[in-house]
């Protein structure tokens, strides 16, 4: 085995395992994400020059960090004029050198970095992409594919968001206790948004990886904040969904809705893990949104044991969720569950208030659910109209085919 091969493999391994930790460590000190990424990529480039000749250092992380820190200090020095207060610069360099001597123990600052990325002063839609890029080193192209945004646009928006953390003075730290619930929610929302992209857009290339990475981030958050029930709730929620991935398509690739899925295809080990996380979360304290959503998933998976989803419990959980969020999406999902308990007429009455909600006009699940409910009441003409709107709003080919099938069965029946 040549030094070059070994060096390349070592660099790959560090890049995969430590990238987020190294960026976080560098960025938290300077509050400059882009600068930290630049310094680290220069350090990787230097590693690929030096390691093949001198061999891989004993502690590659520490080696990279030392080089990156030197680059950071150089960059700072270049940016600062003589007016710049050499004192500040010296203090910074001292701090960096001291950290270098600590060697192998690199403090984990990824949580602080995630809180900065999910700060309310960052555009909501950019929080998840920013976390995916800074912690996981996903490229703008990979993130763009998941978020259905042109890569060049995604790249520009990422650059802007990173600049904003520095210029606006967004703090890199775990918020104070009083702010924590709201801020943590933003971090969890961002990770869940990433997961949802990987879950919903199953047809898009490269997207399932985003779901995997989101689960990885969820595990990271749970390990870094083991006391936070909502973090566990969110990880459980993702695992319940993930457990059903194989059952979402039949052998021909056609879409299979939850209630028609073959429960034997569900991944028992992921469900078991989700259940235990959810139990721990509900013991730990106040029940938040992600825990309730996970509990709803848990009630759905009861079908693998009893043959039937526990619909009355699902409706009750949605009642709590609705009281907590007031969200029209929850009104809709609750109504779908209500249909299984009290029938489609009751469900249609429950979604009546949504008619006036303009957000529902372009919300595909609203029209699909409305189509299903109307079809069950025998209002075929109205159901057909709702299905057609739903088809028009669907971007996933398999889901579109499923809805076309529903529409066709109306005309025959």
């Amino acid at each position, binding site marked *: 085995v040549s030094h070059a091969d070994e060096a390349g493999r070592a660099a790959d391994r560090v890049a995969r395992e430590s990238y987020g930790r190294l960026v976080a460590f560098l960025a938290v000190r300077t509050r400059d994400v882009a600068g930290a990424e630049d310094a680290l990529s220069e350090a990787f480039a230097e590693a690929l020059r030096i390691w093949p000749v001198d061999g891989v250092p004993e502690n590659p992380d520490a080696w990279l960090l030392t080089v990156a820190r030197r680059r950071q200090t150089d960059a700072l020095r270049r940016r600062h004029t003589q007016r710049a*207060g050499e004192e500040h610069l010296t203090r910074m360099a001292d701090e960096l050198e001291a950290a270098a001597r600590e060697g192998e123990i690199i403090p984990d600052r990824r949580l602080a970095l995630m809180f900065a990325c999910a*700060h309310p002063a960052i555009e909501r839609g950019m929080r998840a992409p920013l976390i995916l890029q800074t912690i996981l080193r996903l490229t703008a192209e990979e993130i763009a594919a998941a978020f259905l945004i042109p890569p060049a646009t995604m790249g520009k928006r990422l650059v802007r968001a990173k600049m904003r953390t520095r210029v606006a*003075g967004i*703090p890199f730290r775990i918020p104070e206790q009083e702010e924590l619930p709201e801020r943590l929610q933003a971090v969890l929302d961002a990770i869940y948004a990433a997961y949802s992209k990987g879950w919903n857009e199953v047809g898009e290339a490269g997207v399932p990886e985003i779901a995997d990475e989101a689960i990885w981030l969820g595990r990271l958050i749970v390990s870094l904040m083991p006391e936070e029930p909502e973090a566990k709730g969110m990880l459980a929620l993702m695992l319940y969904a993930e457990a059903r991935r194989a059952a979402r398509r039949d052998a021909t690739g056609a879409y299979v809705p939850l209630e028609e899925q073959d429960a034997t295809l569900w991944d028992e080990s992921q469900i078991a893990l989700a259940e235990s996380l959810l139990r721990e979360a509900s013991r730990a304290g106040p029940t938040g949104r992600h825990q309730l959503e996970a509990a709803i998933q848990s009630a759905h998976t009861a079908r693998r044991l009893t043959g039937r989803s526990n619909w009355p419990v699902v409706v009750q959980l949605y009642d709590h969720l609705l009281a907590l969020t007031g969200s029209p999406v929850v009104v809709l999902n609750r109504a779908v569950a209500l249909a299984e308990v009290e029938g489609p007429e009751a469900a249609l009455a429950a979604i009546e208030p949504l008619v006036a909600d303009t957000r529902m006009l372009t919300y595909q699940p609203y029209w699909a659910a409305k189509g299903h409910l109307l079809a069950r009441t025998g209002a075929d003409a109205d159901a057909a109209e709702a299905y057609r709107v739903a088809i028009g709003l669907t971007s996933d080919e398999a889901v579109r085919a499923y809805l076309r099938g529903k529409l066709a069965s109306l005309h025959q029946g």
Partner: protein
Amino acid sequence: MRYMMLIHHDEAALAAAPQKELWAEYGAFNEALSKAGVGMASGERLQPSSAATTVRQANGKTEVLDGPYADTKEQFAGYFFVTVPDLDEAIAWAKRCPSSKYGAIEIRPAFEAQGNRK
């Protein structure tokens, strides 16, 4: 970091507020600012937008208009500075400022002499 806090008031809402309580609250806020040592004495309260005049020059011609720059419901009403470690602290002061209940406070980092970033 040094932030300018730009106060924008809904002037109608402000006029409808109980004045005595409002300005007592403002007095307390200013005192808290100076006690904390983050405030700057250079803050100003401005006359309402009805007192504003807007000047523009285009193609060598000067245009003078009575009224504020933008005809919006919330009008620029004054400003103060805070020098704090980060945006969260600036947001905390904006939340404490009585004006945030009668409009909005825009937080803008000041350009700083290079290297003076704290």
